[in-house]
């Protein structure tokens, strides 16, 4: 049955291709592990609510987006979730299928929910019919090809570069005999005869599989979910290309590849034709939440309301503010900063801390010492605009590069075919000493001390002052400056951990934060900047000195880069270092309580331990985002669960800073919170798997053991302590001290942001005087404290 492209009606062609595009965009991007950041796994479902997304992902991936009902029931039994929480969640819901009253809701919650089941693929049906595990064979062979194709330097013999995924796979599949050995005779020829473009392959497959236009989207989404992390990696390629104004076809190539398999198996096992036709028909039904989905979503909402209720109890109004602070220290908004900020503030009444996105508002493209490659140090939503590099003499860098190349040559000597034997005989014995060093944690640890950064693209005095003023405004740091202001980026010291960058600063694109902090400190100390700031309307005292530093989130030690601090401030600096050290002890003590086997004293040793699966909890537990003056939350113990952004709306002219906060840090925080959510509730699809059997592939990600599927997301050990989840999966509660009207105005201008709130992926509240004032209701209205709904 030869099918010609031209025989398909043009309307159908475009409908099928559009469905494929939608299926592709339903997959979240996964950033490679060398600089990974959290991504909202439900990015493609932001336009629908949790119950509907649950129904969709059940159909395409066989997962549930809500934790087991037993968890909620345990919460209810323990009194963590009250009847009020349940009733309010029920009341607020406008789902037609919601339970009639609280009693019905609880009764339904007590019934077990059916195990989620994906609609079968042709490969699943073929496996059932023939007893041969076709899905596993596809995962294995496609995985082996993809590992080579996307390899960034692990294997010495990678495929010829520069080919599209589609062409590369076709070449591979025409040679790969594995499917034939497994029993799929003729697959090599089938691959060789596949259409020359992926679009044509897609259309031909849609015809042969009998996919209607309505069925195509979820049927194709189903196949992409089957590819796991490979599809998400390809989605990342598209993300990067679009950020640079281009496009990328790799994800649709992967879809076409997977479709070639489906075609071949349908032909190979004709007995499943009927079952497949029924499946295709099921795909054409619209995605709709079942009453069970609604109950699950309501229970989730109730759990979030329970958290909000407890949080409201700790927000008891603003603390008084000292005249001129003794010290100001700006940290990243990261939830891990909350603990050490609270600890630092207890050191002396005059200490003020500030929360701001860890890239400090500077869109850096940084070239590290002795590297020819640059790294983007900024949230992945933005494009870099400022070039910086490690400040070192060219000859020093060249010498370091030669060293690195000699080490690389030695590494290739170790890896290459015949020389690997010579390597073992010449150097193998030396590894005895390396084993002892690594086993005892004696390897050189901690952050490498890089030379200070310098700005490569020159800046005029005006540009310097304008940039500095913009950042200070965004930080709400326009007045009341201390003599010493610390700007602290953060990074995590971990050893032998493939997911290291997941512990670094998400606002710095998965890099550590000290480069951004050092550039900003340099800029703010620059006499040209200082001279121009007054013209920008910011009065910065002459005796204010900025010092950059790095907060190590694993050990709670702070390293300050204080080489150029004037002698006049030596006393302030020494005092600050003492406070930071003391605060570190308190923070370590608090954090160690949550970390199994940890104590305040052994945290640094755990950071150096090459076998440590849980060096720290990262952002596990994150549940709230608060943008307000620090005075509003000062004194409250937020348990390391809140992103804290300093924001003073009274100083925010035209609410430009509000808009910035809502569109950048809030979105980044929502991605983090939803990544933790996804990795906790649906680890099979959105979790990185078990660290104990991780096998790093191509320098970009991990597979489990011998498996072929790339695993994106957080590993099990990052969200689970072995006995229970360490991250309570909650959608983020965003609380902003600003007028509701101003917030509504920003949401109006950013529909994709508003969608997140309207579909419940984020909760939104306003604060007044440090207390919750109103809750945003999907649809754009606000509900005041115990008051009727008011229009915005």
């Amino acid at each position, binding site marked *: 049955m030869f099918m010609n492209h031209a025989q398909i009606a043009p309307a159908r062609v475009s409908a099928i291709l559009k469905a494929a595009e939608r299926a592709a965009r339903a997959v979240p991007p996964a950033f490679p592990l060398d600089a990974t950041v959290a991504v909202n796994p439900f990015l493609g479902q932001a336009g629908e609510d949790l119950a509907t997304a649950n129904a969709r992902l059940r159909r395409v991936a066989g997962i549930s987006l809500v934790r087991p009902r037993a968890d909620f029931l345990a919460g209810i039994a323990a009194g963590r979730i009250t009847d009020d929480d349940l009733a309010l969640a029920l009341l607020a819901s406008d789902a037609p299928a919601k339970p009639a009253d609280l009693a019905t809701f609880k009764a339904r919650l007590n019934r077990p929910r059916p195990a989620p089941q994906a609609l079968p693929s042709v490969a699943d049906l073929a496996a059932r019919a023939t007893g041969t*595990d076709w899905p596993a064979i596809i995962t294995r062979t496609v995985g082996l090809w993809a590992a080579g194709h996307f390899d960034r330097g*692990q294997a010495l*013999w990678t495929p010829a570069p520069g080919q599209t995924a589609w062409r590369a796979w076709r070449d*591979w599949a025409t040679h790969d005999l*594995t499917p034939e050995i497994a029993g799929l005779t003729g697959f090599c020829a089938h691959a060789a005869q596949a259409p020359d473009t992926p679009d044509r392959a897609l259309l031909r497959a849609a015809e042969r599989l009998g996919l209607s236009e309505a069925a195509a989207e979820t049927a194709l989404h189903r196949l992409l979910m089957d590819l796991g992390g490979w599809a998400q990696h390809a989605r990342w390629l598209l993300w990067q290309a679009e950020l640079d104004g281009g496009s990328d076809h790799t994800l649709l190539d992967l879809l076409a590849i997977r479709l070639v398999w489906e075609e071949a198996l349908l032909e190979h096992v004709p007995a499943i034709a009927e079952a497949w036709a029924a499946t295709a028909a099921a795909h054409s039904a619209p995605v709709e939440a079942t009453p069970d989905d609604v109950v699950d979503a309501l229970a989730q909402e109730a759990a979030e309301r329970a958290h909000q209720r407890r949080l409201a109890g700790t927000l008891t109004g603003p603390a008084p503010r000292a005249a001129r602070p003794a010290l100001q220290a700006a940290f990243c908004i990261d939830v891990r900063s909350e603990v050490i900020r609270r600890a630092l503030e207890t050191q002396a009444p005059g200490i003020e801390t500030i929360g701001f996105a860890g890239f400090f508002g500077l869109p850096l493209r940084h070239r590290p010492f002795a590297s020819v490659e640059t790294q983007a140090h900024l949230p992945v939503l933005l494009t870099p605009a400022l070039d910086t590099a490690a400040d070192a003499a060219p000859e020093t860098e060249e010498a370091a590069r030669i060293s690195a190349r000699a080490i690389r040559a030695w590494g290739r*000597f170790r890896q290459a075919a015949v020389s690997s034997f010579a390597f073992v005989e*010449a150097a193998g014995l030396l590894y005895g000493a390396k*084993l002892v060093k690594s086993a005892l944690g004696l390897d050189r640890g901690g952050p490498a001390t890089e030379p200070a950064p310098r700005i490569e693209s020159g800046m005029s005095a005006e540009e310097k002052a304008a940039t500095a003023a913009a950042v200070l405004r965004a930080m709400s740091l326009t007045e009341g400056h201390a003599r010493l202001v610390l700007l602290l980026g953060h990074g995590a010291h971990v050893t032998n951990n493939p997911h290291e960058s997941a512990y670094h600063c998400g606002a710095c694109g998965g890099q550590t934060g000290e480069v951004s902090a050092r550039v900003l400190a340099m800029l703010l100390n620059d006499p040209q900047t200082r001279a121009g700031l007054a013209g920008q309307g910011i009065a910065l005292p002459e005796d204010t000195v900025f010092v950059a530093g790095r907060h190590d989130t694993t050990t709670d030690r702070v390293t300050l880069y204080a080489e150029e601090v004037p002698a006049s401030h030596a006393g302030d600096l020494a005092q600050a270092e003492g406070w930071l050290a003391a605060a570190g002890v308190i923070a370590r003590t608090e954090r160690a309580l949550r970390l199994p*086997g940890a104590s305040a004293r052994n945290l640094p040793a755990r950071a150096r331990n090459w*076998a440590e699966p849980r060096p720290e909890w990262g952002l596990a537990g994150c549940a709230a985002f608060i943008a307000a003056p620090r005075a509003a939350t000062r004194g409250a113990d937020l348990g390391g669960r809140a992103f804290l952004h300093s924001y003073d709306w009274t100083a925010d002219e035209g609410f430009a800073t509000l808009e910035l906060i809502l569109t950048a840090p809030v979105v980044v925080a929502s991605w983090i919170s939803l990544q933790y959510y996804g990795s906790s509730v649906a680890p099979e699809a959105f979790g990185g798997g078990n660290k104990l059997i991780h096998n790093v592939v191509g320098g970009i990600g991990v597979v489990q053991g011998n498996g072929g599927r790339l695993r994106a997301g957080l590993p099990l050990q990052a969200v689970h302590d072995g006995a229970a989840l360490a991250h309570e999966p909650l959608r983020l509660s965003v609380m902003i001290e600003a007028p509701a009207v101003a917030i509504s105005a920003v949401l109006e201008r950013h529909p994709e942001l508003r969608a997140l709130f309207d579909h419940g992926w984020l909760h939104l509240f306003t604060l007044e005087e440090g207390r919750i004032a109103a809750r945003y209701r999907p649809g754009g209205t606000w509900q005041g404290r115990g008051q009727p709904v008011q229009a915005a």
Partner: protein
Amino acid sequence: MSALPVIALAPTVLFATSAFAATGPGRRPAAAPRLSEAAALGAAALALAGLGQLLLSGPAVLRLGGEGPLSLVLRLDAVSATMVALVAFIGWVVMRFSRSYLDGEAREGAFHALMLATLASVLLLVQAGSLAVLILGFVAVGAGLRQLLLFYPERAEARRAAAKFSLVWHGGDLALLIAAACLWSATGTAELGRIAALAPAVSGPLLSFGVAFLILAAVLKTAAFPLHGWLTEVMEAPTPVSALLHAGIINGGGFLLIRMAEAVQTSAGAMAALVMLGGLTALFGAVVMLTQSAVKTALAWSTVAQMGFMLLQCGLGLWALAMLHIVAHSLYKAHAFLSSGGAVAAVASLRRPGPIAVPDLVAVLKSFALALALFALVAGLFSLALGPKSPQALALGAMLIFGVAYLVAQGLADAAPVALTRRTAITAAGAAVAYFSFQLLAGLIWGPHLPPVPAAGALEWALIVLAVTSFGLVALAQTLFPLWAHHPATAGLRVHLANGLYLNAVLDRLIGGFRAVKSN
């Protein structure tokens, strides 16, 4: 000769601790993780004491009982003391690693119990002084490792890997059993020391038969071509298991050959088979390794290759060097597996210093000439100082020097700066001197206790030429690699190699590895 060798206590300590750990198989047992590391450290200390005892009072034999073919004998000598020290040291590193790594696992206590029992079995195996202990040791190691491979029994891939492992490993046990029966019948003793002494004098089909099955057992247990598949799939178990397997357990086959060297060497055919199969496995494994993008998979293929190389050394009669290779490879591979989590950072750092300078044909030829000159110089100096070397040893040196040529070539590329050329040249010279020195040391330590290199006859010379030529050609191809690896004509070759020439897929087909199973 019946003084108690202290190393005999090491397995006892570990078995006892294992039994204790087994009483609390679940999550976060109170003392087991700490005690397990302590026990492993204790075993390592005993191994060190064993070395001391060997130096002070010489080899010893411990008879535990049993009669005739079933006699149970342990042995302390240069080979067993080395193996015990090696395995106990790696055992300590691995148990220390597991103490942190397994924290919070549902079967944490069971893991420590299984690891200790397996480690104890390996320690028992390498002290074997009689056929019965040898067989018992191998069976126990296989049983322990199988349970460790099934640590996540819900994973279909793990079950498949365990099934393949058991098939090949216990197949090796069966071969060993047959070999033992033959050797016992041929020599009338089951004590390995006596077999070694008697074997050169006894001849006949029984002995040859025994040696043939001994070789079969060894190649199965070292994952030699074509039944290497079980080794390349066992990263299904937690990383410390891989480290113990690739640095401890996999040496069982090599140990078997070295332990029985006197008997093996009576058969020129067996030695030739080892050279050919070992050489083939070495080159095959090393080339497949080049195509693997998953770090643990690449390391597993590297082990296949390194074990093949060790078999080649055995076949050439370079027993002391095979011993050196076992020790050096184990230390390297244990570290490589345990630190494989750093692969993301390692790959990223490869890109940082900029593109790799690619050597052209002239540079490659120059590098080979330089490397051979270096070889002549170093080997000449060593021979002058220490007397002439056997042709087998010289051949092995030549094969290794081809590898060094690769290092030299990287520095000779036109695009390489002078400073880099100098660095790689110094490193290459350092590597050459290092391995000649280590080889010398190996000869001094183990040489006196192992049979001398057989005189090279026509067969030996033919094998030497074959081995040197094939290693030379592969080394040349490897060094010229960037010039041809991406040529369209090689695309198919790469696919077949990346699949390990489908030997595993064929095995899967045969044993039902492609069948669908209930859970995933």
